Every structure is written in structure tokens, then in C-alpha cells.
């Protein structure tokens, strides 16, 4: 019953919020927060409860639709609800003076509801229905801002329709073969399916997940969509929606097929997993370097979303305890820090009047210290610096790659991280460090309601970095669910038997070294505060205007790599789209407009029919 309640509150709440907006804006805001809070509470209630419940029977296909909860769906559901709540909180202030707010809150809640629906579906048809609802409602919010967002939205929806139709083909084919769509039933039938059919199912369904998770070469919708959407929604997109692809892959690879079948799928040394690994590695490297040459704060984050997806893929395709755990943990970690970073970018945008070009910013550390801390912690998490959550998951993934003897993949992962360090530093430096431009001398810190979600996420990044045992416990439960070996964990990391990692030791080591450094500095001469301008100009005259330019960061490197970063895939799709348009225009000319031709068509058709019937 609780699952139905969750869905009813999620979808009903969206409609009620919309109607409330017609009465008063305040009521709508309160309702939106209450609905998303209620979802978080309800979902926390079903922790560790395995429920499966029929809720609807589709008459003509004679199908029972089922809702269920298990560790996998709980893991994703709590992420969706949590980020949903935070983005709603953040929107209260961020969206304050924007237009069409009823529509905005309705759509945001509706998207959250449909995403919840996909993860708690117990059969493939409801999974597909919620997936489709998610696709089109996301489109409605990506294009919300108008302008450039329109093209981004169209690109997204077309790719997403292609993906979901591939999935439709798969689920209908499964249905017509086995007469059911229940995930557990299909899982048991698939154990005896032929290799060819399994491959067909796996590859076709992967298409939609690869698109939604934006793996190279099907990533082209993501950078535009994420950059052009409004910031609170960008964080939902990046943190949760994109990762439905990982959920889907996990569902098809491990829940429905299982490891035994996956291991059979290989020709020589090429297997399904190795193809996915290759995609993951290319995605990591390509995205990291593309992010490096971006000048738009949200575009940098968007490309990093593409790249980090590759790490998750590298984690989950290796069905070892540490790889799987690392991949899943990275899903959670990435969701936390990327939401945080999009909130940061949004806060900057909010205060500076919509500036996203990081070269125009600088020195904001003095004006927006809380936002700076959030950005610093977020970027540290993204890079994977110890004591942040990203470190633990990346450590697990690296370990898997190295111990599993995959030097090239490990190298790609490292290169990706180096790229991340570079663009992460660029992000912090160009926005927060350096000279504060004259026009931003008087901007204020982000409003409290926007700070709150950022602070919460910042704390979580550190918390999960020091105490990774909390989330790892949930992830081990997922592994047990699909009968894969779970990773043994302690509160502070991983015990000795499973390859030691103890974050509390790392914490103390760092604290002690900080203490030593502090002692050394105390012993040294007393520090004299010097003006930033002084140290910068070494005492000589400092011009009043702009003297600190941050354009062309990493110029030599950018020059070197830019020629290789042409987004071939994107151009290719563009050409396909143009070609299709052209063909369609030609096809349309069949209707020439001359009635004589039309009469001829009719008579020819008759002749053709008679011919066909005579001879066949």
C-alpha cells in the first residue's frame, strides 16, 4: 500500500501544487516543499522492506502491473527524493521572480514522480510508461527558459524517443515471447534464452540507457540540455535523471540476465562488457578534455557529468565486489557533488544577473564565502581528494581496474582525473580567485534558502568521505539482491580482508600533518598581512581597471587538444537530421498538385493490384 501512496502523493502532489499556484504563490511553494518532504519520509520508511504489489490490470494485453521495492530501487528512490527536495528548496529563492512558476513547480514535481515510478516498477511495462512520462516531462522543463533551450530540448526529446522506442521493442518482444512483463518472471525465463536473442535484448535495451546516461557517442544531447536548463533543474538532470541509465543497465545486465549469461556473451576477446568498458573509457577521456576547454560554468559541469558516467560504467561492468560497489557508490557521490556544483553555478548566476561565462567572473571568494566553500568541497569530491566521498568510490574503481589487469582502462581513468583536476581548478580559480571585477564589488552572498541545500550537500560530501560505511551498507544490500559478492565494509571504510581502506586513519593522518604544519608556521616569523594587490604586483603600481585576465586558461594545452575534440558524433547526427529533412521534402513532392497525375496514380495502382493478384 505504501508504494501506491508514494506514487499517489508524488503525482497528485504535482497537480495539487499546480492548482494551489492559481490561488497564491506562497501556498504553492509550501505545498511543493511539503510534497517532496513527504516523499523523502515515506521512502525512508520502506528502507530494507521488500514489497511487491499489483496495482492495475491492463485489459487488452492482459497484464498485471506491479510496484515493488528492493535495495536497488530504494537506493535510487532515496536519491531521487532527496535531490528533489533540495532542488525544490533551492528553487524557492532562485526562481522567485521568474515567470510561469506554477508550471515550473508542477513539472519539476511531475518529473520527480515519474522518476520514482521508474525505479519502483516491478514490471517492464510500468517501467516503460513511467520512463516515457519522464522523457516528455523533462523536455517540458529543459525548454522552459526559451532561447537556446528550445533547440536543446528538441535534441533531447528526439534522442530520448529513439531510446525509448528501442526499449519498447525489447519489452514487447519479451512480452510476446513469454507472455509476462514481470521482471522476476522474465529474469527466470531469460536464463534459458538463446545467445542471439539475449544479445538482441541486451543491445537494443542498452541503446536507451546509453542515450539517457549520455555515453559517447550518444552523449550529444546532454551538454546543451544541462547548460540551458534552469540551475535547480540542471542539478536534478545531472544528479538523478541521467543516472537512470545506470539503473537501467544494472536492471537488464544483473537483475534480468545475471552474471552467468553475461559471461557467455563473447566472441574471442570481445564481449559485451569489454565493449561497454571501451565506451566508458572513451567517454571519460573525451569528456574530461572537452570540459577543459569550456568557458561556460554550467557547460563545464555538464561535460563532467558525461565523463563521470564513464567511471560508473567502468565500475559496474566488472562484477567484482569492489568494482560494483565502486560504480554504485560513484552514482551516489556524483549525484551529491554535481547537484552541489550546479547549485553553486546557479547561485553565481543568480547574484551576477545570469553570468555563466567564467572568464567574466573572479574574486568572488570575498563576496560569497559560503558558496566558495561549497564549490571547493564539490570540486574536491569531483576530483576525488581524500576525505571527500569521491575519493572512496574512485579508489574502489581504480583498484578494480588495476587488480583486474586492465592497464589501458586504468590509464584512461587516471587521464580523466587529471583532466578533472585541471578543469576543476579552472572552475574555482576563474570564479572565486583573482581580481574581483568592479561591477561585482557589492554583490551579496547567496540567499539563505539557497545556502541551505548547498551546506547540506557540502556536509554530506565530507560525511560520506569520512564515514563511507553508511552508504556502502546500502550498496552491499543491492549486491546481495542480485546474488553478487558484496563488499565487506566497516563504518570507516573497508576491512583488512577485503583490501584495507580506513578513512578515519586518513582523517587523523591529515589532521596531524596539518597540526605539524601549523606548529612549524607558528615557529616561523610572524606573518604580516599584505594587500592582495601588493603581492600580485610586487609592490609596483597597480592599475585601477582590470589587470587580472583569466581568458585562455591552459592555452598551450587547449591548443594542443582542441583539434582532436571535434564532436564528430554531434556533427554526424546533425547531418543525419538534415538529410532526413531533405529526403522528407523530396517525398512531399509526390503530391505534385496536378490532378492529372493523381488520376494516373489511381489507375496505376489499380493496374498494379490486378497484376499482383493475377500472378501471386
Amino acid at each position, binding site marked *: 500500500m505504501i508504494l501506491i501512496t508514494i506514487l499517489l502523493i508524488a503525482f497528485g502532489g504535482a497537480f495539487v501544487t499546480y492548482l494551489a499556484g492559481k490561488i497564491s504563490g506562497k501556498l504553492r511553494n509550501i505545498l511543493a516543499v511539503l510534497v517532496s518532504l513527504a516523499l523523502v519520509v515515506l521512502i525512508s520508511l520502506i528502507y530494507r522492506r521488500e514489497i511487491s504489489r499489483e496495482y492495475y490490470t491492463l*485489459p487488452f494485453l492482459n497484464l498485471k502491473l506491479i510496484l515493488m521495492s528492493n535495495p536497488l530501487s530504494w537506493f535510487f528512490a532515496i536519491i531521487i527524493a532527496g535531490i528533489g527536495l533540495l532542488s525544490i528548496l533551492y528553487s524557492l529563492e532562485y526562481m522567485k521572480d521568474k515567470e510561469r512558476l506554477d508550471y515550473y513547480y508542477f513539472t519539476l514535481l511531475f518529473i520527480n514522480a515519474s522518476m520514482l515510478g521508474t525505479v519502483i516498477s516491478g514490471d517492464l511495462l510500468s517501467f516503460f510508461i513511467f520512463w516515457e512520462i519522464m522523457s516528455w516531462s523533462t523536455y517540458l522543463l529543459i525548454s522552459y527558459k526559451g532561447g537556446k533551450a528550445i533547440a536543446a530540448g528538441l535534441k533531447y*526529446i*528526439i534522442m530520448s524517443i529513439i531510446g525509448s522506442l528501442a526499449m519498447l521493442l525489447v519489452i514487447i*518482444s519479451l512480452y510476446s515471447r513469454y507472455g509476462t512483463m514481470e521482471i522476476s518472471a522474465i529474469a527466470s525465463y531469460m536464463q534459458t534464452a538463446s545467445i542471439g536473442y539475449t544479445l538482441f535484448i541486451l543491445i537494443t535495451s542498452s541503446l536507451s540507457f546509453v542515450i539517457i546516461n549520455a555515453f559517447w557517442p550518444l552523449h550529444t544531447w546532454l551538454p546543451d540540455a544541462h547548460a540551458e536548463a534552469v540551475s535547480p533543474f540542471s542539478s536534478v538532470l545531472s544528479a538523478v535523471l541521467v543516472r537512470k541509465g545506470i539503473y537501467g543497465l544494472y536492471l537488464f545486465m544483473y537483475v534480468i540476465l545475471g552474471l552467468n549469461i553475461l559471461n557467455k556473451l563473447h566472441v574471442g576477446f570481445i564481449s559485451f562488457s569489454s565493449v561497454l568498458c571501451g565506451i566508458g573509457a572513451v567517454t571519460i577521456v573525451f569528456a574530461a578534455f572537452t570540459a577543459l576547454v569550456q568557458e561556460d560554468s554550467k557547460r563545464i559541469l555538464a561535460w563532467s557529468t558525461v565523463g563521470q558516467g564513464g567511471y560508473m560504467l567502468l565500475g559496474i561492468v566488472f562484477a567484482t565486489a569492489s568494482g560494483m560497489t565502486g560504480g554504485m557508490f560513484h552514482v551516489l557521490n556524483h549525484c551529491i557533488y554535481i547537484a552541489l556544483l550546479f547549485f553553486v553555478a546557479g547561485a553565481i548566476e543568480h547574484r551576477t544577473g545570469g553570468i555563466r561565462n567564467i572568464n567574466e567572473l573572479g574574486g568572488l571568494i570575498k563576496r560569497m564565502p559560503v558558496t566558495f566553500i561549497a564549490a571547493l568541497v564539490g570540486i574536491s569530491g569531483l576530483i576525488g581528494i581524500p576525505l571527500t566521498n569521491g575519493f572512496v568510490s574512485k579508489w574502489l574503481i581504480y583498484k578494480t581496474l588495476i587488480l583486474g589487469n586492465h592497464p589501458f582502462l586504468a590509464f584512461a581513468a587516471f587521464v580523466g582525473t587529471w583532466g578533472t583536476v585541471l578543469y576543476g581548478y579552472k572552475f574555482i580559480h576563474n570564479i572565486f580567485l583573482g581580481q574581483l571585477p568592479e561591477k561585482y564589488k557589492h554583490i551579496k552572498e547567496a540567499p539563505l534558502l539557497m545556502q541551505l541545500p548547498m551546506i547540506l550537500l557540502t556536509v554530506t560530501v565530507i560525511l560520506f568521505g569520512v564515514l563511507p560505511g553508511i552508504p556502502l551498507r546500502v550498496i552491499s544490500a543491492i549486491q546481495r539482491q542480485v546474488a553478487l559478492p558484496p563488499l565487506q565494509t566497516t563504518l570507516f571504510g573497508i576491512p583488512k580482508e577485503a583490501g584495507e581502506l580506513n578513512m578515519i586513519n586518513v582523517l587523523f593522518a591529515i589532521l596531524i600533518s596539518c597540526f605539524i604544519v601549523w606548529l612549524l608556521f607558528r615557529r616561523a616569523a610572524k606573518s604580516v598581512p599584505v594587500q592582495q594587490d601588493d603581492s600580485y604586483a610586487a609592490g609596483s603600481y597597480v592599475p585601477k581597471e582590470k589587470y587580472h585576465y583569466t581568458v585562455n586558461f591552459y592555452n598551450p594545452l587547449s591548443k594542443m587538444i582542441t583539434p582532436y575534440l571535434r564532436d564528430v558524433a554531434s556533427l554526424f547526427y546533425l547531418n543525419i537530421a538534415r538529410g532526413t529533412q531533405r529526403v522528407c521534402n523530396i517525398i512531399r513532392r509526390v503530391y505534385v498538385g496536378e490532378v492529372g497525375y493523381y488520376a494516373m*496514380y489511381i489507375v496505376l495502382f489499380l493496374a498494379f493490384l490486378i497484376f499482383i493478384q493475377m500472378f501471386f
Partner: protein
Amino acid sequence: MLSPVLLIAIPLGFSFLAPLLKKGAKYIPPIAMLFNLILSILLVPQVMRKPIIVLLGGGWPPPFCINLVASPLGILLALLISLVGFLVSIYAIAYIKEGATEKYHTLYLLLLTGATGIVLTGDIFNLFVFFEILCISSYALVAYNGDKHGLESAVKYLIQGSIGSSFILIGIALLYGLFGTLNMADIANNISYHSLQSPTLYVALAFFITGFGVEGAIFPLNAWLPDAHSSAPSTISAILSGIAIKTGVYAIARVTYTLFSAKGFMIFIATIGIITLLIGEMSALGQKKDIKRMLAYSSIGQIGLIIFAFGIATYYGIFGALFQLVNHALAKSLLFLASGYMIYRVGSKELSAFEGLGKKMPLSSLVFTIGAFSLIGLPPFAGFMSKISIISAGIKANNTALFVFVIIVLFATIIEGCYFFRVVQNLYFKKSRDPAHNCVRDGCPTTQKSEMPISALIPIIILALLIVAIGIYPRLVTGIIESAAIGLMDKVGYIHQILGIF
């Protein structure tokens, strides 16, 4: 006594009432169609138990008289015709203002009489007569606006339609020459139980498919459709797209399933359907300017999908086809009606003129979006349910050719998504242009909002609600569609019911 005869007699009688009441003529069609709607809803439970057969003409038993067959299929379509007819006629009260309005209403009722007659009759020549009633009134209605485009396309439609009708007549003559009967059940009986395999029979089938195909808009017989649909008044486009071409499809299905039971021929029908689908959808994508022409091409595509589903030739296929037929009738008439007032307000059929209309006409834009989503086949709208049933029928048939066709259907869905989302983004996300650009007609709104009049809004909102309701609770219609599909498959039952033999 509820008799299906009234379904034909009432609109026919009322249609001649319309010219007498000059001013009140516009209220005649809603009254007549409301009566039909109620009557057909009341007939549904009765018909689901046992089809009603009405004998006309001297009380002779079939095959010696004209008979009406109120089977589930007939009543389903009659219900659809009266529902769409009723809603469109309410819309027309405010929409049809200029010109010879009483003639419009007369012709409108005649068109619906013809459509209802086609789906109810059990006699092939009677079917032809009703077909002519429908076609001739639609030729005149297409030209109703009286402008150059309207007249030109009406004449083109007339020429092609007449060729089609003459082909049907030839087909009937061939059959009459062979069997000496015009009763469909009797012909079917003759064909299957005397197992006649003469080439004349094949030729007759070819003539029928071509003839009905013109009205049913299968490729390449559908060249009249984009012209006629785009230059007719929007109410007529809605009826043509929602009802008129569906009767052509019904006639093809009736002829191929009941009359000839040409099982081996069905894969060919499916191929025609797929080609029609592909050509229609691609033309719609290519049509970037005129919204009504785009909707017309999309109708061609949808008809192709319905015909493809009939061509699958299994129970599931027919079920999907009928389901899609119902949903398309609802969604496409919704789209034409919604775009009708939008075009009127912006004074142009150009897609680019629709930019930013979402703010000025919020409700119309919303229902337009619902209709478009339903046609693309997005859940939770009605179109999803029918599309999924067609796709599952295609895959269940376990035939490689059909599997390839299903993939083409999916490809066409992508194209559909492209052009419908193009309209939706124009409505909602693009800023409206200079107001002077949008305002060329007089009576242009001065206020920001300029929603359509309430009497036009109600019918399209009802259509939108129906689409959502069927999408969420398909059981609303699946019951009668299931028995209609069974009825169409069951040729022996049909013959048995009418002739009372075996």
C-alpha cells in the same frame, strides 16, 4: 423501441429541416447528433449480447432485401461518428459564421448520415449509395470557404473521388454479375462456400480496394487529402480526418475480411499501410509551414498505421487497428479544432505565427499538446495504448516481414515526435513575435489573453479529457472494441446471423 434505423433516419430528416430554419439552423446538427449519441450508447449493451438486424423493404428475409446490421463494430463506429459529429457541431455554432451557413449545416448532417449508413448497412449497393452521400457532401463542404484554394482542392477531390466511386461501382457490378446478389453476407457466402476462384473475383477485389482506398486515403490514392484538409474550414477538416477517411478504411476492412476473406492478400495490405505511413509521416515532417497541411499529412500516416494493423490479420491486429482508429479520430479532430481558432486568432496558417500562443490561448494550447502527445503515442494518453497494442500484435504474429514493419512503425513514431514537438515548442517556448505580425484580421484581441469562445472550448476539452481517460483507463472502450474485432474476424458468424442458414 430503439432501432438502429433511427441512427440514419434522424440526421437525414434533420438535415432537410436546416434550410427551413434560417437562423436556428446551427442548432440542428447538435440536436440530431446528440440524439444519435444517446441512441448509440443505449444500443451498446444490447448489441454486445446479439447484433440487431433490421430489414428494410417489404419484410423479405435476406438476401432479398436491404438490411442494416448493428453489430458491435457498426455501433462502435456509429458511436464514434455521432460523438465526434456532436462535438464538432457544437464547435461549429460559434465557428461557422460567414457564408451560407444553413447549407453548411445541411451538408454536414448529410455527410454524417452517409458515414453512419456506411458502417451500419449490410448491403453492398446500399453502402455505395451512402458512400456517395458522404463524398458529395464533403466535396461541397471543402469548397465552403469559397476562396480559390478551397474551390481548386474541391474540384481535385471531386475528380479523384469520382474515379474512386466509379471503381467501386464496377466492383459491385462484377460481383452482381457473378452471383446475382448485392447482400454482403450472401456474396460472402457465395465466395467462401461455392469456393469460386475466378479471376473476375480478384479483379473485383482490386477495384474495391482502389475505390475505397481513394476515400480511405491509402498511398498513392490520397493526393486529394492534403489539399482538401488544409483548405476546408477546420470543422470540416476535423470531420474529414476523424470520420470520413475512417469509413474508407472500414469499407476496405469489411471487403477484405468479410466479403473476400483474402487471407493471403493481407500481407500486401500491411505493406500498403506501411508505405502510406512512411510517406505520410515524412511529408508531414517536410511540411514546415502550413500547420493544417502538416496535420493532414499526419492523418495519412495514421491511416497507414491503421491499415497496417488490419493487415496483420490476427485478432490482436484488428483490435489494435480499431483502437487506433478510435484514438486517432479523437486526437485528430481535437487537433484540427484546436488549430481552427488558433489560425483564426493569428490570422495565418503558418507554423511560425503560432509562436508564443501558449500564453495567449493557454487552454487551446494545452489541449493541442495533449492531442499531439496522444498521436505520438506517449503515455499516459490514449494513443500510447493503441500503439502498444499494434506493436505487440505485429511482434506476436511471429513473421519476419511484420517484425521489420514494426521497426518501420517505430521509426515513423520518431518522425512524428519531431514534427509535433516542433509545434509544441512554437506554442510554449518561443516568444511571440511583434503583435502587429500576429494581428492581420480585424477584431484582433487587444488583451493579452484571447481564448476561444466557450462553446468552441467545451468540445475540445471534452475530447482532451476523453483522450486522457482512455489513456489511463483503457477499459472504457476496450470492451466494445474487443467484441468488434471478434465480429470482424468471424465471417461465418456474420453470414450466419444475417442469412440464418447452417
